[in-house]
């Protein structure tokens, strides 16, 4: 017994673990275990690598952006922009009034315009079809010495060709029978040497001119009000343009100086790293030669501020002029569209006047040398309302327009996809016969196989027109946002994204329903519940955690999708105009994912723009993390307790 070092009997020795290699056990069991362990580890490491590379590319964004914003301030661009704001409001108001005017004018001259255009169109089509007969005749006529009988023959062939072409070309329905006859006569008489418009078409033209004139006379007051409105801003615009020119000069100098500083810094770096003394001296000499003159911001600002009294003095005249012009805008418009637009303008007009006054206050309170802290660059990125790049004025990297675009599209898609996929899941899982299940499931899952580019095609070629046409149906005008202006808009993208999310959401919701214990439905039916009652009172509530998870994973898919939104969302970088309520979804927008895909290939590596796009990537990454986190929480919260 004593020779056994562990004091364990021989039999028990076999139970001891065998010593491993370098402390790692190497039998088959533990190798398999280490393999899986390793896979999990690699996944986590990859995740960190992705985060790290995103962070590396975007570091430097905040200092760069802060520098750009401080030049924006110190050079006085910010100051000039205080005036820009009311001016652009003025422009928007004017364009709305203009649209209202055109809608009104249309009521008078639309019909005659359509008739004239239709006649022109058919004339053009006939001329195109008879071009083979027309050209020889033209040549013969041009030659001058062609015998008259030959010209007559050519004329005859042309007339015959015209008649043939007319036979195959139905005349527009806009014309009644006798008008069709006159039109035919006109067209038959078309000869290359007759330059006058044929009489009937001429009469259509005259009619339009007359009606257009009548319309313009009728709305003369409107026109003059419009003109007065437009002209009111001219003095201010002029002043503003002058300021812009001045500050841009300073900004240009500042940018050049910044680049020079950068170059000098790089030269010095190179000198430090140089291998031979000779080279180092060369670099240092170059560095010394780059001369850097500090920018004299102060003088520029001093002269800029002198413009404020001028601006202030222009304001009363401007307000007077626009208010007068507003009085000239008709109180009662004839068309619905014009009424809506004018109402909108009337509503926002007082606000506009207030903004004009505010701009002066802002300018007075402005300090050109107030420093911009680093977190300002971050908040300007996260909460900035403008994403403007490659601008001759000033670049802004504010993600709010992109974020709202992504969010609105995602919400639209979710609101459409959720009821569809849940209803389909309930039907398939609870009511469908096995045969139906065999058909439905593969079909829905097949949607996933459609490449998103192809869906984008559908959005552009089919859905866009469909939405636009539907929105013109008169009895659907109660829907906010109708009639739709743009074919490519957030709703269109949302619809397609919903289609893409449905398979995921359907499958997961169906699984969730499948996982509800049969005992529940059996108990319910034993109590006399119908199938429908069982589904809605027991099975669906019991599956709610899974349905939530399905929804959130679908949301993840929707937010991350790039191709469809890039193709279909319309790519207008602007915060949607919510004056129409939820009708805003019919406006085009750009998205977080779309902007990266669109712009990353075109920007120079390392520039502020490049870094900003990576910041957007990080934002997306965090949104996805948040969604994942939420879905875990939600699933936990609603999970059925185990019995």
């Amino acid at each position: 017994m004593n020779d056994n070092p562990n004091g364990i009997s021989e039999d028990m020795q076999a139970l001891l673990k065998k010593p491993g290699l370098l402390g790692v056990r190497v039998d088959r069991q533990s190798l398999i275990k280490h393999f899986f362990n390793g896979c999990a580890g690699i996944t986590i490491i990859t995740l960190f690598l992705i985060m790290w590379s995103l962070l590396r590319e975007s570091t430097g964004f905040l200092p760069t952006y802060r520098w750009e914003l401080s030049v924006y301030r110190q050079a006085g661009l910010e100051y000039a922009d205080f005036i820009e704001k009311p001016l652009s409001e003025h422009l928007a108001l004017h364009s709305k009034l203009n649209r209202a005017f055109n809608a009104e004018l249309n009521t008078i001259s639309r019909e005659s315009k359509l008739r004239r255009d239709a006649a022109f169109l058919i004339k053009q089509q006939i001329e195109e079809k008879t071009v083979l007969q027309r050209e020889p005749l033209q040549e013969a006529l041009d030659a001058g010495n062609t015998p008259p009988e030959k010209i007559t023959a050519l004329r005859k062939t042309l007339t015959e060709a015209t008649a043939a072409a007319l036979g195959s070309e139905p005349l527009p329905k806009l014309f009644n029978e006798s008008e069709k006859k006159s039109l035919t006569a006109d067209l038959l008489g078309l000869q290359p040497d007759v330059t006058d418009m044929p009489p009937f078409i001429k009469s259509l033209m005259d009619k339009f001119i007359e009606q257009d004139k009548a319309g313009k006379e009728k709305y003369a007051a409107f026109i003059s009000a419009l003109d007065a409105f437009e002209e009111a801003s001219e003095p201010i615009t002029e002043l503003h343009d002058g300021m812009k020119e001045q500050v841009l000069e300073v900004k240009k100098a500042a940018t050049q100086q910044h680049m020079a500083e950068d170059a000098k810094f790089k030269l010095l770096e190179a000198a430090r790293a140089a291998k031979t003394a000779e080279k180092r001296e060369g670099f240092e000499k170059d560095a010394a030669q780059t001369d850097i003159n500090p920018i004299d911001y102060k003088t520029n600002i001093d002269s800029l501020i002198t413009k404020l009294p001028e601006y202030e003095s222009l304001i009363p005249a401007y307000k007077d002029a626009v208010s007068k012009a507003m009085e000239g805008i008709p109180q009662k418009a004839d068309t619905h569209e014009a009424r809506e637009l004018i109402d909108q303008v009337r509503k926002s007009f007082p606000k506009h006047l207030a903004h004009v006054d505010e701009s002066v206050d802002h300018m007075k309170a402005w300090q050109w040398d107030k420093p911009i802290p680093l977190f300002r660059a971050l908040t300007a990125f996260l909460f900035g309302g403008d994403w403007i790049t490659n601008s001759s004025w000033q670049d802004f990297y504010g993600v709010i327009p992109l974020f709202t675009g992504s969010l609105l599209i995602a919400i639209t898609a979710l609101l459409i996809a959720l009821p569809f996929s849940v209803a389909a899941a309930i039907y398939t899982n609870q009511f469908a016969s096995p045969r139906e299940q065999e058909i439905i499931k593969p079909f829905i899952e097949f949607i996933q196989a459609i490449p998103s580019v192809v869906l984008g095609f559908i959005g552009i070629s089919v859905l866009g027109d469909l939405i636009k046409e539907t929105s013109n149906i008169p009895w659907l005008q109660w829907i906010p946002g109708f009639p739709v202006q743009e074919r490519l808009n957030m709703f269109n993208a949302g619809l397609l994204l919903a289609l893409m999310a449905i398979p995921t959401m359907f499958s997961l919701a169906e699984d969730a329903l499948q996982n509800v214990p049969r005992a529940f439905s059996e108990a319910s039916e034993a109590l006399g519940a119908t199938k429908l009652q069982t589904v809605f009172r027991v099975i669906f509530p019991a599956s709610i955690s899974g349905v939530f998870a399905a929804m959130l994973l679908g949301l993840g898919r929707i937010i991350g999708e790039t191709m469809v939104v890039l193709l279909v969302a319309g790519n207008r970088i602007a915060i949607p105009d919510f004056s129409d309520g939820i009708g805003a979804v019919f406006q085009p927008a750009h998205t977080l994912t779309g902007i990266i895909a669109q712009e990353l290939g075109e920007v120079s590596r390392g520039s502020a723009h490049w870094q900003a796009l990576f910041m957007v990537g990080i934002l997306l990454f965090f949104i996805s993390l948040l969604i994942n986190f939420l879905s875990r929480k939600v699933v936990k919260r609603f999970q059925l307790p185990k019995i």
Partner: protein
Amino acid sequence: MVTAAPYEPKKKQIVDHLAPTAVDKTFNSKATAGEEGMISVRDMDFNYGAKRALHHIQMEIPSKQVTAFIGPSGCGKSTLLRCFNRINDRIQGAHIASGQVIIKGKNIYDKDVDTTSLRRQVGMVFQKYNPFPKSIYENVVYGLRISGVKKKADLNDACEYALKSAALWDECKDRLKQNAFGLSGGQMQRLCIARAIAVKPDILLMDEPCSALDPIATLKVEELILQLKEQFTVVIVTHNMQQARRVADLTAFMYLGELIEFADTLTIFSNPQQLKTEEYIRGQFS
């Protein structure tokens, strides 16, 4: 003691248009038919698809008594029990091949029988307690809610009545709004009994109601069954012969899908007429 509240839900006939005279015609003279809660099985065969699970079952189950089905596993006890509320209809291919099951004078396998109202009169408790993932209160009143009862007072009365009848009221009255899954196993099974009797059925079917419970909880449920027979006709499937002795007035012994012997419990256990029955209760096979 069961202190029933004055609650009395509206009873629906299995087939509403069934006139008493029409009922009389279907009555079998030799049976004590016509009495409430009476089940009579007439030469019934039952199939799962092509496979026959029950052969020529013929029995009369009296009302307001406890009837136990015993027999080895797989002999068709559950299948027979589940014929009485047609819950077998849920299973694809399961069907009655011939014969009748007559409850309250009506063959429940007739085409014009509405299974939902049948099941309101024939309640069922399952082997594994299966409360809904809802509050205790919602579990108990579920049967009333689905039959359209909306008045809060009616629901409250029914809940109190059912929980008292299931001897669960004192344990639960302060936690009615809590999730049922917080109860113990025995309490959950009694909750399932309360849920079944809240709609005041005539018949209560129980398929091995104690097999998932510990001995003390089993005892409580057995006590409860003895109380329940004052109001309901109870049919219980059990694997446990002691249990059949303790609770049943009548016992049916089944073997390989056939009803071998059906008599009062005392006779079955002391003086069985069939050899198979004797072998089984002596424990020679199981």
